[in-house]
């Protein structure tokens, strides 16, 4: 681990697969001990932990539903006991429940807002002061291009991601003076389980003519988590192959 970083660890929510798994591996490569959070996919999380440990890194499985306030609190206590303050948080856990607005049921609205926005808020609230005290912190929120550009059928998802970007910016200006940066990464179309139902002809609309990969998103997160990104805060890094250019 770099000498400029205080001792601590990283937490990646939804780290058992997709973008989260790629992020966990990338942070571990950069020397961070990584707590790999999952809600139910313990096997997936354990697989990521095993890969990190096989590469000489340190990792643990941290099971918690980000919507469960008590579970989030417990998770932080467990991770802090394991490797000290959580200095990097990647709010990646997210869900979709697509429908056009007249068809979105209350439950489909709340579940998406709760997982994608309330969860990251609670995690940010818990994470921020230890980072402030350590005079180092990195909060990276995985948002989406649909938070800024409309995509019919995703009003709930879009609202949650737009909210996440606003949470990101506001938190950033509150804590910037303490060496804590808060940024969002907005992927376009990335091939993961979350997008397994997306029409493959979607690629024709993308200037890069292909979906992104979890590794390409993880590389951006890795950079934002690094000491080199210390003057980047309150911004959103769009990673979409030119889709919204």
């Amino acid at each position: 681990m770099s000498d400029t970083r205080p001792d601590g660890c990283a937490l990646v929510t939804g780290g058992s697969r997709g973008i989260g798994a790629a992020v966990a591996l990338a942070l571990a490569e950069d020397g961070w001990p990584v707590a790999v959070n999952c809600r139910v996919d313990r096997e997936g999380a354990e697989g990521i932990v095993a890969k990190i440990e096989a590469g000489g890194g340190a990792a643990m499985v941290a099971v918690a539903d980000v919507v469960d306030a008590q579970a989030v609190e417990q998770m932080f206590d467990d991770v802090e006991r394991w490797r000290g303050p959580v200095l990097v948080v990647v709010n990646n856990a997210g869900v979709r429940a697509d429908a056009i607005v007249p068809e979105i049921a209350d439950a489909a609205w709340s579940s998406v807002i709760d997982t994608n926005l309330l969860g990251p808020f609670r995690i940010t609230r818990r994470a921020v002061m230890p980072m402030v005290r350590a005079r180092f912190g990195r909060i990276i929120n995985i948002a989406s291009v649909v938070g800024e550009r409309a995509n019919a059928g995703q009003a709930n998802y879009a609202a949650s991601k737009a909210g996440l970007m606003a949470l990101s910016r506001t938190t950033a200006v509150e804590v910037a003076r303490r060496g804590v940066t808060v940024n969002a990464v907005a992927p376009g179309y990335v091939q993961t389980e979350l997008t397994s139902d997306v029409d493959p002809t979607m690629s024709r609309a993308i200037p890069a003519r292909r979906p992104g990969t979890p590794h390409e998103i993880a590389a951006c997160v890795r950079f934002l988590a690094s000491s080199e990104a210390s003057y980047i805060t309150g911004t959103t890094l769009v990673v979409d192959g030119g889709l919204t250019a």
Partner: protein
Amino acid sequence: MTQTQQTQEKLERLVFDTLESFGAEPAEISREAGLKELDIDSLDMVELGQIIEEEYGVRLTGADFKETRTVGDAIDVIAARVL
């Protein structure tokens, strides 16, 4: 100096030192100094509350400092709770 005066002075010293660690100019820190003028914001006050809790075991949050305008106001709020 009485014990009370010593304890009060110790608390004042802790607050002054903490504000300095937050970036306030040491020459400008006094009981009469305005927190805003010292560029002390809400986050600083939350952190001050945590430092006080670590020292005295009494929990203070940003809300406790809502009405404070000067360094002296902050010291008085803390003193009322911990001394």
